[in-house]
């Protein structure tokens, strides 16, 4: 169970997250919504430890991980699919996936076949440099790479960006499936509202760095969305 509370994050003098709280439960999907620049990515980066917060706490599996380094958080089962893919450009596709083995105990360092079943193109292109892949292929690689770590908390920052419709559908199914297995908590940032709504168990809606609406997915009504997501 993830419980982050009172997160405050600054870029220099600009206050990007204001007392933000977010939680995620094993087996559930938490959606983060909000317009461009409200702080969704900042929140995700804070959760994995790439951005230090000025105040607030992040509790994971009952422990305070606020001060931990990103790789220590990875060891505790946290993985992220970042916005902008962030593939290792000069590693091959296979090597990119192998980086995901780092936080696993020695005996478990193996890439599951399931991953390739989900993204067959990655198998086809396993010896190509990651940087040479098309945008959508890279996005698939980024998701696969996160899954290789066998995370217990999976953070997805706009994972469908640039992916073709059929695969988006697959990804949706997989996310649902992963959640249903009951071994993983999922936090999903998504602009693609239909996709988000179909998956979300609970949600928070950000505006200018603040949580303005939160709750159960059933409470997510179109009015709120219109109010906060349109111009």
């Amino acid at each position, binding site marked *: 169970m993830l419980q982050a509370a009172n997160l405050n994050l600054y870029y220099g003098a600009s206050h990007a997250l204001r007392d933000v709280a977010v939680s995620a439960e094993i087996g559930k999907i938490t959606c983060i919504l909000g317009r461009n620049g409200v702080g969704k990515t900042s929140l995700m980066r804070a959760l994995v430890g790439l951005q230090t917060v000025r105040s607030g706490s992040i509790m994971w599996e009952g422990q305070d991980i606020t001060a931990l380094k990103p*790789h220590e958080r990875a060891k505790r089962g946290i993985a992220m699919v970042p916005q902008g893919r962030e593939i290792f*450009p*000069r*590693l091959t596709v296979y090597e990119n996936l192998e980086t995901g083995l*780092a936080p696993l105990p020695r005996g478990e360092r193996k890439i599951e076949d399931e991953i390739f079943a989900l993204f067959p193109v990655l198998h086809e292109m396993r010896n190509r*440099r990651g940087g040479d892949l098309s945008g959508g292929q890279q996005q698939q690689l980024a998701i696969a790479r996160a899954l290789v770590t066998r995370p217990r908390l999976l953070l997805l920052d706009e994972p469908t960006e640039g992916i073709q419709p059929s695969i988006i559908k697959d990804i949706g199914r997989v996310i649902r499936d992963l959640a249903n297995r009951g071994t993983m908590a999922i936090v999903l940032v998504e602009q693609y509202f239909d996709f988000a709504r179909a998956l979300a168990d609970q949600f928070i809606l950000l505006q200018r760095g603040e949580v303005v609406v939160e709750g159960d997915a059933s409470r997510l009504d179109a009015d709120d969305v219109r109010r906060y997501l349109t111009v």
Partner: protein
Amino acid sequence: MAKPEDLQAIAVPEEAKALLAGAGPAASSEPVDFATALAGLKSDSFADKGKAIDALTALGDVRAIPVFRALADGRLLLRKSDGLMVIGAPSGNEIALTSPLDGSSLGAVSAGTLEPLFVNNNLRNVLREAVGRLGLSSSDQAARSMAANALLENATPETVALLREAYGRESVDGVKRVMALSLAAAEIAHPDKVKRLDSIAVLGTASDLRVRALLQARLNQEQDADVKAALVKAFDRMQTKITLYSYVENFIQGISLGSVLLLAAVGLAITFGVMGVINMAHGEMIMLGAYSAYLTQEIFRALLPPGWIGAYLIVALPVAFLIAAAVGVAIERGVIRFLYGRPLETMLATWGVSLCLQQAVRSIFGATNKEVANPSWMTGAIEVAGGLAVTWNRVYIIIFCFLVLGLIALILKRTAFGLHMRAVTQNRQMAAVMGIPTARVDAMTFALGSGIAGMAGVALSQIGNVSPNLGTIYIVDSFLVVVFGGVGSLMGTLVGALTLGVVNKILEPVAGAVLGKVVVLVCIILFIQKRPRGLFAAKGRSADA
């Protein structure tokens, strides 16, 4: 002048008696005994020493061989206390003494209590010839071969006779061939035309520069047309061979220079090529390696028996690796880690580090060069033929640098550490998110690069200076090699270094060392226009972002 009292000390009693009986030292045409002749070597005049040597040689006593060798090497000594003539051999910090008369041991003393007998180059030649003459009857086949070889150029009728005799006795083929050649050389000016032709036929099969000189000299004097024709033919054949060898030699020298460049650059191929850190202190890592070799050698000299000294270089390699790696880690943890993603600031900071390291070494070890010995297994050359020789240290360096490069390639491509290294440098933040301990990987990568530079320093100490400036000598070349090869490509570094080495060595005989290097640099500049990302450029979409 040798005083009779001194001689008493060396002489076994009977000989001493004979000596005191009045046999003049050296040079007398009357037969003298060994001890008396030996005493002549004590003279301060080079001319008198020469006469004594002649006298000893004339005696034909093989006991003279170790004496001559020792004299030529400066190991024939006088004991200051009593003027006794002894042969010395270093043994730890002391000199072990043996008697020139019967080879019996006289114990070991400290070097300060002895005084060497000096010869000059002229006498060294005389000695060599004498050793050669005496050596023809040695039981050691290498000694016989050397002796015969030494007689190639300056044979006298007397030595020819000796040689012929030895040739008759000889049973080893290789030695026989050398003797045949020397015999042929002696007969090149034989009044008998047939003998001359025979001699030329034998000589023509060699590809020795000395033989070529002999043939050429003869060519200038020869009157007979047939012989002249044979000479020209033999000469031309040899010339072709020698020219061919000189191309091979050029190429090997190029590879050898290339391997030095490669050694200087391999560490940088990691710290700069893989990590992207413009490490201006790279040269100082090499320097630290060289000083590690020096330190190891001094420790060996101080603590271990002299027989061990040859091994110091082997021990120096891991020592240098550890020292340079430790300094590397200190630099990475202390400075560079705050500067990732800001390569230019790293350049500035490592420049500062390099200044400090240079000055530190200067303060600790002094500004002057340090002597790092070549172990005996690294000295000398393999003579192939026709003057083509490859020195052992070069051979070892070539082998060593390929080993190191292979090792790095293995680490980079085949280990998880290698994968993490590459991932961290390509996207440090994302690597951290994937669970790679970036700080540790950075430190270890830098340690590896530095450590390898340190090992390179050990190798380079064998062919160059060991001074605080050592690093500055290699830094420009190292960057040149890594960049020319293509940053990030080990293969590029390898091919780049070897290419530069070979091209340099091809140009050097034509353009001279200075212009040759200028031309090489200009070629590099032009080449980079053709391949703006080096020889082995990173390809693909990510490269031209």
